[in-house]
């Protein structure tokens, strides 16, 4: 399929049928959604997604960056400011986050971009040592998959991303966390074809659901919950860290009470790894982990558990 271009005139006499306006998944209401059961009777599953990617100073002309992410000075070239700010995450910030996670007994699930995997071998070692699970995450932070790629190009990106994680960590990734949660219409089918079993690109729910099947293979859609993702919340919306931490604690408490849900917190070392924000990560986790009945897990284990109940 070529890139989708909307018509210039509004359609007339359109037929509309019950169900979604795409074929990836069915409609499901909160009342119909399963209340998942987690190991040891836990009320809620907790995962931490750590995004480790490499932001190019000079991306190719046809690369697709998330237009929302620009330097505070504007969209100019070269943007050493953003490049170095991101690099701070991999050099300094990530250790603050890892130390915090260690303290709370949390193992990160790492969205590992292919370029980051080769540029930061020490970090791959640090993470492997902690039994982190690794998801594929594209190649560069500055190259999203969009419907502007041909299907063949997209397939090649997915395979290269998968293979880079395999080559650097020694495990074939089961999960896919799309760069900036961007997909083409083909992406889920191509992920299934490449052997992935779950993705975190779809923010429609607080409980996992299935995408597909695509040639008999379905993908588990694990909720990324971007509302309290540090980038979406603190970087793009400029919500202050104390308010961010409050939101995390309240969302967790609410979902804990509702029962059978998942809670994922996505962190970027260059954002939450800034010292003044790390403080509020600790505050949020202290409040979150004050509740009983939490399954602290990784996205790999969560997806496998969820699949059994879908």
């Amino acid at each position, binding site marked *: 399929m070529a890139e989708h271009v909307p018509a210039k005139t509004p359609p007339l006499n359109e037929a509309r049928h*019950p169900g979604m306006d*795409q074929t990836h998944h069915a409609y*499901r209401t909160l009342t119909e959604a399963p209340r998942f059961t987690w190991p040891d009777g836990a009320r809620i599953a907790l995962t931490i997604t750590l995004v480790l990617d490499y932001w190019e100073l000079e991306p190719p002309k046809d690369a697709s960056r*998330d237009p929302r992410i620009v330097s505070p000075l504007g969209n100019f070239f070269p943007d050493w400011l953003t490049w170095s700010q991101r690099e701070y995450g991999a050099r300094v910030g990530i250790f603050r986050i890892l130390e915090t996670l260690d303290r709370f007994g949390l193992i990160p699930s790492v969205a590992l971009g292919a370029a980051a995997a080769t540029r930061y071998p020490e970090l791959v070692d640090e993470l492997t040592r902690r039994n982190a699970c690794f998801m594929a995450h594209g190649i560069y932070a500055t190259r999203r998959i969009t419907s502007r790629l041909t299907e063949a190009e997209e397939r090649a990106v997915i395979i290269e991303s998968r293979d880079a994680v395999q080559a650097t960590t020694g495990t074939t990734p089961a999960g896919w966390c799309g760069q900036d*949660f961007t*997909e083409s219409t083909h992406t889920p089918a191509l992920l299934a074809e490449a052997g992935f079993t779950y993705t975190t690109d779809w923010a429609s729910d607080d409980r996992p659901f299935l995408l597909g099947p695509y040639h008999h293979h379905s993908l588990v859609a694990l909720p990324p919950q971007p509302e309290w993702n540090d980038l979406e919340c603190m970087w793009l919306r400029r919500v202050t860290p104390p308010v961010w931490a409050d939101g995390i604690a309240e969302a967790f408490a609410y979902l804990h009470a*509702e029962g059978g849900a998942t809670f994922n917190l996505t962190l970027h070392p260059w954002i939450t790894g800034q010292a003044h924000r790390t403080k509020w990560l600790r505050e949020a986790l202290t409040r979150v982990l004050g509740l009983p009945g939490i399954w602290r897990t990784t996205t790999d284990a969560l997806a496998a558990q969820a699949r059994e109940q879908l």
Partner: protein
Amino acid sequence: MEPDLVPYSPILHRPPLRWPGDARVALWIVPNIEHYEYLPAFQRTRDPWPRSPHPDVLGYSQRDYGNRVGLWRLFELTDALGIRCTVSLSMAVIQHFPEILGAMEQRSWEYMSHGLYNTRYHWNFAPDEERAAMEESKDIHQRLTGRRLRGWFSPAITNTLNTFELAAAAGFDYTADLYHDDQPFPLKVKTGRLLSMPYSVDLNDVILHRRGEEVSEFARQIRDHFDIVYAEGAEQGRVMCIALHPYWVGQPHRIRAFCAALEYILSHPGVWLTTAGEITDWFNEHHLKLIEAHLAAREAANG
């Protein structure tokens, strides 16, 4: 030449508006129950998904969260507080999701059309295109609810110079596209009769969202706004609208704080918890003539 759609009338110079039971504030609560297309079928002006070539799975799924999850939390809240909502409805929602229509009908909620999809903007619509969208909205409502559609609220508040004439000619009773007032107000249209119903683009969760504010700020605004209009409403009846989006306020970190703000309002006597249809009926029956006389007198005095 400016369109003379909303004749000027300062609120304290109008005849006093009295609500049923001498309530001070008519409160209508408006969830925007919308659908944003995965692949928008149509685009002339604004790009509904400017973040990437379509689809934008993030934007799409974040909004779909409202219909799958957030709305069902809102139903629990409104059931507990006894709130009947007036829905700003993407009409395609009740075609795609009969479950939502069933749950709203069970609660006797009212609907005003918010266009077909919230990804189809009406900027630069020719009159026949805008009329067709209104007629299709009316038709969907009539077929699926058995009732006449009474309210018009342009999708994503995208409208034209013709919107109000067309809405009046199409037989709508009120529109939520204009924010000039704390009271309903008759618009000067050539055919039919169209009230401007005070919706809010200020007490509106997604407007706060864009400013980086969170639910504590929304709840504070709701309380503060209420305190003022409640006091003012003793002299001159007011409308208060709370506009929300289930994909925002139905998030687990927001719903309880929002609920507490509504409980605060509802703990006061003299609050008429109502719908746009009921406000329209009351206004037309008890107040419209007074306002028309006031406008005629004002025109006679000022030319």
